[in-house]
């Protein structure tokens, strides 16, 4: 067990129970929560866990802020979409697309890293922000290749679609959609364990040393730029793979679902609230965030209606304004709980 977790145990009984619950819920989601909507939520949680964890690899372990993470996510998604459109439906197209997206993301990340990290780590945040928004505009304009604002529908092999039926297990009909879910689930699990392995390796140690004190790490003899650039590439490539899975699951890719700044903000909020520098923070944070997104909004709507007689308050409580409260929570958690939920549970400061 410890080998699978790369020796990084949850170190807190509450956290261990939470993680086990999330793992079980996701592993048996099609049977525990039948219905296409809950399956959709479960798949989204799986993919976002990987996406957020790969961002944590960069932010929490490397101490580098990037705003281009959705760009890499989108590269993987568009890679699959474009490969399928060009090569025809089939598993080779999916594999080639995912691979091409991953390689492209790694190369672009390397270029950005070499351009900006060489000078000042702080440039990285600004440069990625500029490049990511330029790419988002470009994608919506190059409609001949990317389908523009409308995005692209992806035709995936029939075995992964609801039309493919296998039989029935425990009263739940097994169809291609559920196979597709398990493809997503197991890929995400493998990617997550891989990242756990990376951050607990000597490489991950050096990254943390650089995060704590780059100057000292350099003095000890580690090439800071090299390690940071490598972390950037790794995180970009994993994000691209998550994007490919997302595209295969949704069978659609568009600028708003993969490249939007809103998604970038969500990732940032989840990492910080879940706990920077702890891979498990991504798991707990994503699960709470996605569930909150679904249920808190309903609650806020109810409260907004209940207070509709008062001035301004219903506007502040309207479900559309939930980002306002999340933003405040975000600021407070950066000040008071820089290690997030997981850090709190582990009792570290």
């Amino acid at each position, binding site marked *: 067990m410890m080998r699978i977790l790369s020796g990084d145990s949850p170190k807190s009984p509450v956290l261990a129970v939470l993680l086990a619950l999330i793992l079980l819920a996701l592993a048996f989601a099609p049977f525990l929560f039948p219905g296409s909507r809950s399956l959709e939520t479960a798949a989204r949680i799986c993919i976002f866990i990987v996406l957020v964890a790969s961002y944590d690899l960069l*932010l929490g372990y490397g*101490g580098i*802020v990037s705003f281009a993470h959705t760009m890499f996510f989108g590269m993987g998604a568009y890679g699959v979409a474009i490969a399928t459109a060009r090569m025809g439906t089939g598993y080779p197209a999916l594999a080639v697309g995912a691979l091409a997206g991953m390689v492209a993301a790694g190369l672009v990340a390397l270029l950005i890293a070499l*351009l*900006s990290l*060489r*000078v*000042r*780590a*702080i*440039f990285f*945040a*600004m*440069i990625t*922000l*500029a*490049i990511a*928004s*330029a790419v988002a*505009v*470009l994608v919506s*304009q*190059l409609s001949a290749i990317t389908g523009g604002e409308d995005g692209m529908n992806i035709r995936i092999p029939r075995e992964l679609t609801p039309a493919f039926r296998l039989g029935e297990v425990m009263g739940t009909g097994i169809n291609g959609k559920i196979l597709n879910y398990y493809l997503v689930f197991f890929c995400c699990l493998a990617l997550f364990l891989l990242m756990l392995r990376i951050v607990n390796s000597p490489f991950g140690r050096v990254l943390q040393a650089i995060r704590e004190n780059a100057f000292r790490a350099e003095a000890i003899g580690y090439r800071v730029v090299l390690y940071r650039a490598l972390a950037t590439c790794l995180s970009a490539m994993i994000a691209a793979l998550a994007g490919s899975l997302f595209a295969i699951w949704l069978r659609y890719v568009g600028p708003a679902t993969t490249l939007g*700044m809103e998604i970038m*903000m969500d990732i*940032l909020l989840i990492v*910080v609230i879940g706990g920077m520098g702890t891979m498990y923070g991504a798991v707990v944070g994503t699960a709470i965030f996605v569930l909150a997104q679904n249920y808190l909004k309903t609650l806020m709507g109810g409260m907004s209606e209940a207070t509709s007689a008062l001035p*301004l308050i219903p*506007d*502040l409580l309207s479900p*559309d*304004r939930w*980002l*306002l409260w*999340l*933003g*405040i929570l*975000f*600021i407070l958690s*950066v*000040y008071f709980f*820089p290690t997030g939920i997981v850090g709190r549970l582990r009792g570290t400061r």
Partner: protein
Amino acid sequence: MTDSAPTHAPTMTKLPLAERLRPWLPVLLVPVLIVIGYLIIPSQSSWLTLTVSGLAMGMMIFVIASGMTLVFGLMDVINFGHGAFISFGAFVGTTVLLALGQMTGAPSLLLNLLAIAGAVLAAMIVTGGMGWAFERAIVRPVYGSHLKQILVTMGGLIVAEQLIYVIWGGHEIVIARPETLKGAITFAGAALEKYRLVAVAVGLIVFLALRLVLRRTKLGLIVRAGVENPEMVQALGYNITRVFVGVFIAGSALAGLGGVMWALYQEVITAHMGNEIMILVFIVVIIGGLGSVEGCFIGALTVGLVQNYAAFMEPKLALISNIALMVAILMWRPMGMVPVVKAK
């Protein structure tokens, strides 16, 4: 014993001309760009139109970016929430202008300018106050940690943007320019929009005023010294934190001014307009050299011109052109065009 000075006279060799000119090269960038534009754009009149609109855009970006770059230079604080001040400035200014509809609708230049002055004043007071609160509540606790600054100011940006939705609603607001600033004048066969000329003038005034304050006053001396070595200034008895708060407030107010200018330039405002402009602002402060007002000015004009020329030659390249410009300049001068020397 030899008290006599050595017999040979030391010769102070002048650096070769090329060496002495090197620091000034960026200054040449804007004229060179304009000349290149003249060569590649076939029609002379459209070249003039594009140049004026590029300069106008550059001036507006400069007004917005100058505060941010100074704040960074002085306290090493990177404010990703700067865009919130742009949006708030635009919304406050627009609200005032809409309320003064009779003054903006009248065909009198004086009344129009008074209305704009009122709007600008209101916007600058509000964003200046916001800047003060932002510095106090959000930035102050995270001095010294870039990572936390980026995260926290980003959070502040989200909250501020949501507040705009709460106060003004989610829809975009259309704002017409005042009567006398509508339309264009014709000069040498080229149509030059009046408002753009005004924007260029305002930008130039802000630049000259900033330069005057920074170069000719004691306050400016403290600020410039603070950019180079804050600890030394502190040791000499000046309260650098107070100076910094002042600069932060002034920078925020300038962003508010820029927001009003941009609102009248686009004639429509949205809650996320600040974020869109911030992308250009980031490019400008990076290529200008973080902390340098002069570099920021050159960078802003360059970005404005390149964007307008590129949009004319190949519309789809407009945004990419700025990224390419940034990459090229960072390869040429990794610390930006006018690097700020830090005594650290």
